[in-house]
C-alpha cells in the first residue's frame, strides 16, 4: 500500500448494523486505509436490532445484544459520536453537520441511515402511547407500558408486528393484532400457511382482526390513547398502539443534499450513489428498484461497499433472494423466494393440517424458485441452498418434498429437528456441545454464519455431521438474518474471497502450476495461505497438471507427508496394501515380524480388509517400511485423501453363489488406481453377486457382479451420513468396469472440491450430469479414462520413494545434550 502522510477520511452516518458491518469488512481488508468517524442518532453503540424481539419477550437483555462495545471503537481508532443526528451534508465542501453543530469533513461518505416505522396517517397517530417498533427506546417503552397497562393493539400482521405482539403477550398484556391483508404475513406466506400460523398464535392467546382498516386512534381522559376505531364503526380498547405496518427508508437527509433518491437512496451495483464520493448501504437504499428490510442482504451489500471503499473495486452486488424465519418460540415457519408461484410455475404440496405440517415448493423450469414450510422446517436450509444454487432438481423431484435431512445419522440421538431439542440436548456429539450453548453463543457473541458458530463453539467443527442441526438453530435464533451463500460463491477460507470452483477453474484456464502463482493471480490476503486452502490448492495443481505441477509436501496434512496416520498420542499407524483384501503367509509373516521388531502395541483388522499396525514412533517409520517393502508390500494409503481400498467378497473363485470373479476384478481395479490422490478418500468394493457381501452399496464406486456382467454404483458413503450408492450403468466386461469407474473417478478428481466426498459432489452436480459425461458420451468417457491412466502412469510406492529419494530428515529428531 502507498504510504500516506495523512489518511483519507471516511465518515459513516448511521451507527447501525449495515453501516458498522461495512466498516468491519473494510477494516478486515484495508485496516489502515481511512481515518474513520461514525455518527449515530441513538445514544448506544451498535447493537443487534433483530434481537429486539427476544428482548421484548424477556428472553434477553439489552446488554446481551450489543454487537460492538465502546471499547471496539476505541481499539479500532474510530471517532464515535453517539446521540448526534446529522442535519446537513455539504457535498460541495465535503462535510457533514450534526444537530449540535459538530462538523466532520470527509473524503468518502457512507450513508446507512436505515429506516423508520411507517406511521399510519390517521387522526391520533401522535398520541402518547402510540409508537413504532424500531429501536431500544421503543422496546423500553413497550416494556414500561406492559407494566402499567392492559390493552395492546398491534397494527400490522407482518414479521415485526407478530414478534411485537408475542412479546407483549408474554409480558402479560391483552394483545390484538389488526391486519389489513386477508391473512397474516402475506408477504412471506401463502394463505394455507398463514391460517395455520394464525391458529397457533391464537392458541397462545393472541387475538386477530383481519381485513380491518383503522380509521382513528381515540384519546382517553388521561390524554393517552384509549381505543382504536375502525372504518366499519367497531372500536376496541387500546392503552398501547404499536404501528408495525411497514418501514420507510430514511433518505430525507440524502435527498436534501441533492443525492438522487427514488423511494430510497439510489445506488448502483457497487453501492455507490450518484455522487461518486458517497456510498450507501442498508435499509435506506434502493438497489435495482428494491429496498431490503431484512439483515442478510444488508450484509452482502456491506461486503461490496467495503471492497470498493478499500479501492479494490472487484465486488458487485446483484440483489438478494431472501428467506424468512419467524422468531416466535415454539412456532416453526420458513419461507424463501417466490413462494406464491403463478404463471409458468408448478407446485409440490404436502398438507397435513391435523399433524400441523404444511410444505409448498414452487418450481420453474426444473428449478426450485420458492417455498413455504410450516410445522416442519428442518429442511429449510437445504431447500434454500438448492434455490440459491439454481440446481436442476429433475432427478430428485419425486422425493424433493420429503426433504433431504442435512443432518448426519449419528451423534445426536437420532434427532434431526433442532426445534424439538431441549437446551440440554447434545447437538455436536464429537465435542459435546449442547443446543443451549450454541444458542447462547449466537446471541451473546452476535454470530451470523455457520462458520462463526463453528469457530466460537466448536460445534460442527469436527466431523460436521451436525452442521445441518446447527444451521437450523442459527436460523431459528436470528430469523431472517440467516442466509447461506450459494455453494459456488462460498469462499475457500479466510485467505480469499474466491470459491473452490473459481480457484479450480482459474488453475485450469490460466495454466497455473504453483501455489505462488495462484496466490498472486487471485490476490490472496495471506502470504502463504492457511491449513485450509494450501492442501486444497496443492491438490488442484497436481490433479489439473499432472507431471507438470510439483507436489509441495509442506502443503500436505502430516498424514500425507509421513505416509502414515497420526494418532492422538503423536504416534502413527501403518497399513500395508493388500490388493483386494488378499494376503498370503509370506506377507503375514513379515507383518508379524515387523510388529514384534518395532514393539507395535496394537494390531487390528480394518473395515477395508487390511491390517493396521498402531502405535509406531515417527522415527521408526522408515525402518518398518523397509521391512515391509522387502516382503513385497507397499503403502496402503490408509492415511490419504486418496484411493484407500477395494474391498471384495470371495466371488466366483470360491463362492457357490458367485457369478463373477470378484477378487480378481477388485485386484485389477486397485492396481489401476494405486497412488491416486482425490479431493477426499475413495473407497471401492466388488461383490460377486447381488447378495453383496462386500457392501458395495455404500462405496464411492461399488461393483456388483450379475450373471450377465456387472452393475456399477456410484456415490455411496458409509460414514457420518449413510448414503446409498446410485446406479450408474450395467457393463459386460472387466475392461468396461475399469473404463467406466476410472472415467467416473477422473471426473470427480477434476471437478470435485477439496474434502468433498463423491456423494457430496454427486449431490451438488446431480446424477444426470454424471450420466451425461460417463454413460452417454463415449468419447468423453474414453478421454477421461485415458487422462486417469496418464496421470497415474509413473505412480511409485511413497514408502519406497521417501526412504530412497526423499530426505528422511523429517523423521529424525535433532538431539541436544545438556
Amino acid at each position, binding site marked *: 500500500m502507498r504510504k500516506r502522510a495523512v489518511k483519507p477520511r471516511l465518515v459513516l452516518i448511521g451507527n447501525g448494523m449495515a453501516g458498522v458491518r461495512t466498516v468491519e469488512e473494510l477494516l478486515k481488508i484495508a485496516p489502515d486505509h481511512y481515518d474513520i468517524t461514525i455518527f449515530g442518532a441513538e445514544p448506544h453503540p451498535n447493537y443487534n436490532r433483530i434481537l429486539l424481539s427476544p428482548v421484548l419477550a424477556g428472553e434477553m437483555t439489552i446488554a446481551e445484544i450489543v454487537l460492538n462495545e465502546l471499547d471496539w471503537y476505541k481499539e479500532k481508532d474510530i471517532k464515535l459520536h453517539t446521540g448526534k443526528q446529522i442535519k446537513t451534508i455539504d457535498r460541495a465542501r465535503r462535510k457533514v453537520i450534526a444537530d449540535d453543530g459538530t462538523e466532520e469533513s470527509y473524503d468518502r461518505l457512507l450513508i446507512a441511515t436505515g429506516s423508520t416505522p411507517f406511521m399510519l396517517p390517521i387522526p391520533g397517530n401522535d398520541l402518547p402511547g402510540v409508537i413504532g417498533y424500531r429501536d431500544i427506546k421503543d422496546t423500553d417503552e413497550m416494556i414500561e407500558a406492559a407494566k402499567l397497562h392492559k390493552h395492546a393493539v398491534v397494527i400490522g400482521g407482518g414479521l415485526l408486528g407478530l414478534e411485537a405482539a408475542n412479546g407483549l403477550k408474554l409480558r402479560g398484556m391483552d394483545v390484538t393484532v389488526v391486519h389489513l391483508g386477508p391473512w397474516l404475513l402475506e408477504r412471506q406466506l401463502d394463505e394455507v400457511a398463514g391460517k395455520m400460523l394464525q391458529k397457533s398464535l391464537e392458541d397462545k392467546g393472541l387475538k386477530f382482526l383481519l381485513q380491518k382498516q383503522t380509521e382513528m386512534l381515540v384519546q382517553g381522559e388521561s390524554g393517552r390513547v384509549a381505543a382504536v376505531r375502525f372504518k366499519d364503526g367497531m372500536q376496541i380498547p387500546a392503552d398501547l398502539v404499536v404501528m408495525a405496518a411497514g418501514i420507510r427508508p430514511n433518505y430525507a437527509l440524502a435527498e436534501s443534499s441533492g443525492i438522487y433518491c427514488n423511494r430510497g437512496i439510489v445506488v448502483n451495483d457497487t453501492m455507490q450513489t450518484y455522487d461518486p464520493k458517497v456510498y450507501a448501504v442498508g435499509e435506506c437504499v434502493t438497489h435495482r428498484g428494491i429496498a431490503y428490510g431484512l439483515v442478510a442482504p444488508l450484509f452482502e451489500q456491506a461486503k461490496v461497499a467495503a471492497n470498493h471503499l478499500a479501492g479494490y473495486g472487484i465486488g458487485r452486488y446483484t440483489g438478494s433472494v431472501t428467506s424468512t424465519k419467524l422468531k416466535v418460540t415454539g412456532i416453526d415457519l420458513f419461507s424463501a423466494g417466490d413462494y406464491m408461484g403463478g404463471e409458468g410455475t408448478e407446485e409440490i404440496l404436502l398438507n397435513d393440517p391435523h399433524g400441523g405440517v404444511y410444505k409448498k415448493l414452487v418450481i420453474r423450469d426444473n428449478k426450485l424458485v420458492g417455498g413455504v414450510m410450516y410445522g416442519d422446517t428442518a429442511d429449510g436450509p437445504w431447500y434454500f441452498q438448492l434455490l440459491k444454487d439454481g440446481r436442476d432438481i429433475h432427478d430428485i423431484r419425486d422425493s424433493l418434498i420429503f426433504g433431504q435431512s442435512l443432518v448426519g445419522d449419528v451423534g445426536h440421538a437420532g434427532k434431526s429437528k433442532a426445534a424439538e431439542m431441549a437446551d440440554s440436548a447434545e447437538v455436536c456429539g464429537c465435542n459435546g456441545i449442547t443446543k443451549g450453548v450454541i444458542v447462547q453463543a449466537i446471541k451473546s457473541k452476535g454470530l451470523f454464519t455457520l462458520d462463526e458458530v463453528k*469457530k*466460537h463453539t466448536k460445534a460442527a*467443527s*469436527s466431523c460436521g455431521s451436525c452442521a445441518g442441526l446447527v444451521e437450523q438453530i442459527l436460523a431459528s435464533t436470528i430469523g431472517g438474518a440467516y442466509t447461506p451463500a450459494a455453494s459456488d460463491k462460498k469462499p475457500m477460507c479466510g485467505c480469499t474471497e474466491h470459491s473452490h470452483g473459481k480457484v479450480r477453474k482459474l488453475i485450469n484456464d490460466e495454466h497455473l502450476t504453483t501455489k505462488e502463482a495462484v496466490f498472486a493471480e487471485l490476490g490472496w490476503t*495471506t*502470504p*502463504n*495461505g*492457511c*491449513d485450509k486452502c*494450501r*492442501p486444497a490448492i496443492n491438490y488442484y495443481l497436481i490433479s489439473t497438471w499432472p507431471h507438470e505441477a510439483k507436489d509441495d*509436501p*509442506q*502443503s500436505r*496434512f*502430516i*498424514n500425507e507427508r*509421513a505416509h502414515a496416520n*497420526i494418532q*492422538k498420542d*503423536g504416534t502413527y499407524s501403518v497399513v500395508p496394501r493388500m490388493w483386494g483384501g488378499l494376503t498370503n503367509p509370506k506377507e503375514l509373516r513379515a507383518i508379524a515380524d515387523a510388529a514384534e521388531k518395532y514393539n507395535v502395541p496394537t494390531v487390528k483388522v480394518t473395515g477395508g480388509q487390511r491390517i493396521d499396525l498402531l502405535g509406531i514412533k*515417527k522415527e521408526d517409520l522408515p525402518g518398518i517400511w523397509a521391512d515391509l517393502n522387502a516382503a513385497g508390500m507397499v503403502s496402503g494409503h490408509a492415511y490419504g485423501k486418496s484411493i484407500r481400498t477395494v474391498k471384495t467378497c470371495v466371488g466366483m473363485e470360491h463362492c457357490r453363489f458367485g457369478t463373477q470373479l470378484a477378487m480378481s476384478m477388485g485386484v485389477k481395479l486397485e492396481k489401476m488406481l494405486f497412488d491416486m490422490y482425490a479431493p477426499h478418500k475413495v473407497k471401492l468394493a466388488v461383490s460377486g453377486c447381488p447378495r453383496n457381501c462386500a457392501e458395495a452399496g455404500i462405496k464411492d464406486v461399488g461393483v456388483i457382479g450379475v450373471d450377465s456382467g456387472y452393475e456399477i454404483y456410484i456415490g455411496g458413503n458409509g460414514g457420518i451420513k449413510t448414503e446409498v450408492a446410485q446406479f450408474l450403468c450395467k457393463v459386460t466386461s472387466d475392461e468396461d468396469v475399469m473404463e467406466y469407474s476410472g472415467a467416473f473417478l477422473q471426473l470427480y478428481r477434476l471437478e470435485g472440491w477439496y474434502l468433498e466426498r463423491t456423494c457430496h459432489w454427486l449431490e451438488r452436480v446431480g446424477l444426470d450430469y454424471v450420466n451425461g459425461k460417463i454413460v452417454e458420451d463415449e468419447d468423453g468417457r474414453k478421454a477421461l479414462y485415458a487422462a486417469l491412466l496418464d496421470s497415474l502412469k509413473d505412480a511409485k510406492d511413497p514408502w519406497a520413494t521417501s526412504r530412497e529419494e526423499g530426505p528422511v*530428515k*523429517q523423521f529424525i*529428531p*535433532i*538431539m*541436544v*545434550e*545438556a
Partner: protein
Amino acid sequence: MSNWKLICKLEDIPQLGSRVVHWEERGKIAVFRTSDDEVFALHDKCPHKGGPLSQGIVHGKRVTCPLHGWNIGLDDGKAVAPDVGGCKKFEVKVENGQVLMAE
C-alpha cells in the same frame, strides 16, 4: 546475555516446515521456519490436547495443530482467538545459516 546452543543448519528445516529437537531437560521442542526464513521455537505440545505442533501445517507466523486444528502463533505461542491457551516459547536466532537456541 544467554548462551546459545547450535541446533542445526537453517537448510535442515524445510521452509514452511519444522524439525523436532529433543533437549534432555526441556523435552521436545518444535523449531519452525517460515517462508521468509524466520525461525521460531515452541514446546512441541498444543495447549488443547497436547498434539505435536511440529507436525502441523505452517502458514504466515502460525502453525495449525494436526490433531484438532487449533492455530498457534509462532511468535508468541498463544492460541489464535477464539481459542484460548498457549505453549512455552524458546528464544532462537539464525546466524550465518546456523540455527541457535538460547540455553
